């Protein structure tokens, strides 16, 4: 009887989530290009699309590049986020309010607007970043091209993504830190434990579940990120040498009108992200068990 009561929710969720996934799987098994798009009718080719993708060296290079990109982004987000949350605990109420207000403003900014602002800031001709760095005598940044190399392009994209992701992580970890019993921390400090040990032995076990969730979410989001790199680097400068997975999917699927292949790539992305998450979760759980 209780299970019968949740049936409406299951049906709705199944329709909203399940049907698109079924559609995606079906599309990945079809030859569906511009010709088929106009006629609204695909042609079944079995696993041919998957074979094409897995034999494409661009796919493998993109996977490696995106994994490295994800590790960098998630690492920076979680480390800076946790450190800032620890800071938030210690500062006075006024500073905390100001900082939180600033974080919420960043969080509220739509990604496309944020990209435009960063675009203007890092502009080659008249960006404020070049101007400030030159005036501060950090070096001669006049007409510095922040998008000259792939590393530089993805570096600026990383800064933008981490900047946008920090508010959520900081505020959530700050909330989790309020669960850490103050007496335990005090007791550990009285016993002579150094701050690093206090964090590892007292704070971490309490906030581990939250850190786990945040890191898994960050992996999901950062692996499949599209808006920021695509708009910031700009379509004319996108090529297989700086593809990220979602951009590769868009280029193959939409630009080249090979929707079947795009669907195959997205399913493979799902598998890779699931694998990354499983590896990470198992590692974290194992560390917990040893403790």
């Amino acid at each position, binding site marked *: 009887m209780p299970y019968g009561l949740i049936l409406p929710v299951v049906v709705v969720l199944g329709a909203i989530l399940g049907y698109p996934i079924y559609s995606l799987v079906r599309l990945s098994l079809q030859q569906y*290009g511009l010709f088929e798009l*106009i006629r609204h009718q695909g042609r079944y080719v079995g696993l041919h699309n998957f074979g094409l993708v897995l034999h494409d060296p661009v796919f493998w290079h993109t996977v490696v590049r995106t994994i490295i990109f994800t590790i960098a982004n998630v690492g920076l987000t979680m480390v800076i986020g946790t450190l800032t949350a620890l800071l938030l605990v210690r500062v006075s109420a006024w500073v905390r309010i100001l900082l939180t207000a600033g974080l919420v403003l960043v969080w509220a900014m739509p990604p496309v607007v944020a990209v435009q602002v960063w675009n203007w800031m890092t502009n080659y001709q008249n960006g404020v970043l070049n101007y400030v760095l030159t005036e501060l005598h950090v070096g001669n940044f006049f007409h510095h091209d922040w998008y000259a190399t792939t590393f530089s392009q993805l570096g600026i994209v990383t800064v933008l993504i981490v900047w946008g992701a920090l508010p959520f992580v900081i505020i959530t970890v700050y909330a989790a830190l309020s669960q850490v019993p103050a007496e335990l921390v005090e007791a550990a400090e009285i016993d002579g434990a150094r701050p690093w040990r206090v964090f590892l032995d007292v704070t971490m076990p309490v906030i581990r579940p939250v850190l786990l969730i945040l890191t898994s979410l960050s992996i999901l989001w950062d692996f499949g990120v599209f808006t920021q790199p695509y708009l910031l680097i700009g379509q*004319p*400068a996108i090529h297989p*040498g700086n593809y990220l997975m979602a951009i590769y999917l868009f280029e193959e699927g939409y*630009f*080249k009108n090979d929707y079947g292949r795009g669907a195959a790539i997205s399913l493979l992305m799902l598998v890779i992200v699931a694998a990354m998450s499983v590896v990470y979760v198992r590692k974290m759980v194992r560390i917990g068990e040893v403790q």
Partner: protein
Amino acid sequence: MRLRVVVAAALAVALGVMAATAGASTGRQQANKLTVWLQVDAQSGWPDIVAAANQQFQSDHPGWTVDVQYQNWGDHLQKFDATLAGGNTPDVIEMGNTEMTKYMAAGAFADISSFKSNFANSANWLAGLAKSGMYGGHLYGVPYYAGSRVVTYRTDAWSKAGIKALPTSLSQFTSDLSKLASANKGTQGFSPVYIAGTDWYYAMSFVYDYGGSIAYTHAHKWVGNLDSKASIAGLTAWKNFWLAASKASKTSNEGNPAPYDIFSQGGAGAIIGPGWFSCCTGTKYKSVTAQFVMPSHVRGKAMPGFLGGSDLAVPAPSSNKALAADWIKDFTSTSSERGFQAKGNIPNATNLLGSSVNERAAARSWFVPAAKHWVDVENGNILRTMLSEILGGKFTVKQAATLASDNITATLNQP
């Protein structure tokens, strides 16, 4: 308690009915509206001609309105694909001549061969443009306008630099560059000629000038030709010219920033682009803006210019095909074409051609390979990547050209 449940249920039903009927009413198309997609070039270059065509159409068809939606070159094809999937395509769409083949082959456009005699000057359409709108002997695209590339320059900056006459060869132009650079040493980041790093339309002109090409067919297969000796000579000449002429970002494209914006801000002595760039050089330099044809490395000849152009097509799912053809007739009338010509473009028919700078430049031109998958080469940025690699020094000209050539061969030979 029970009353509350009843009220809640009634509210839910009412909302549901409202949602359903609201969905139904927005689903119904506006009965008497013709949707036209033009590129932003028309919005900034000749909005008056668009308005005149709309006026003519609306007086011929009372009760009908024309909704012109302006699109960007970068994403208009994806938007078009989305409408093809959804069934709400525009009634008229402007397509670049390099984009037509792929869509004609897929059956995206309606056959408008029966309307051909209605279009002004259709017997005299420019051969190159007209060909891009034909497939399998049927007409799918009406030539709209063409354009070559010209040099738009500042007469005041050039005379101040002591340049007495316009260059008639590439080497003469190159020595003019150093005069311009030394005369403007005070302006930081001044480009004697502002050219975007990855402006492949300009770079390929050098390739064709030296006798090379992008690709050719051999035994029904496409073969990339950028790695040939002639093409490499052209690319090397381009690289040397660019490094002496432009202070633009080596990874920038010709759309962003717009070269005429750099010109209007005093950052360039000249810019390369379509003839209509003269519209937007700013109030400060309006009176000193003039144009000339880019000289070849051979004295006295013009460097081949990219013969760009647009066609107007009627998407196949449109339900207003005859009206769409009529709007196209109004927009490509002789007076409209004269209007485009006055703005610095090349009109679509040989009997309308004049002797403006742009039209003289078109006397020697080049065009992209007429391949079904050419648009994939453009979208994949194969040429742009090659150019930024050459300028940045990541690869030598030969290495970058060979990589790009192999890539082009593979892309054009896809099934």
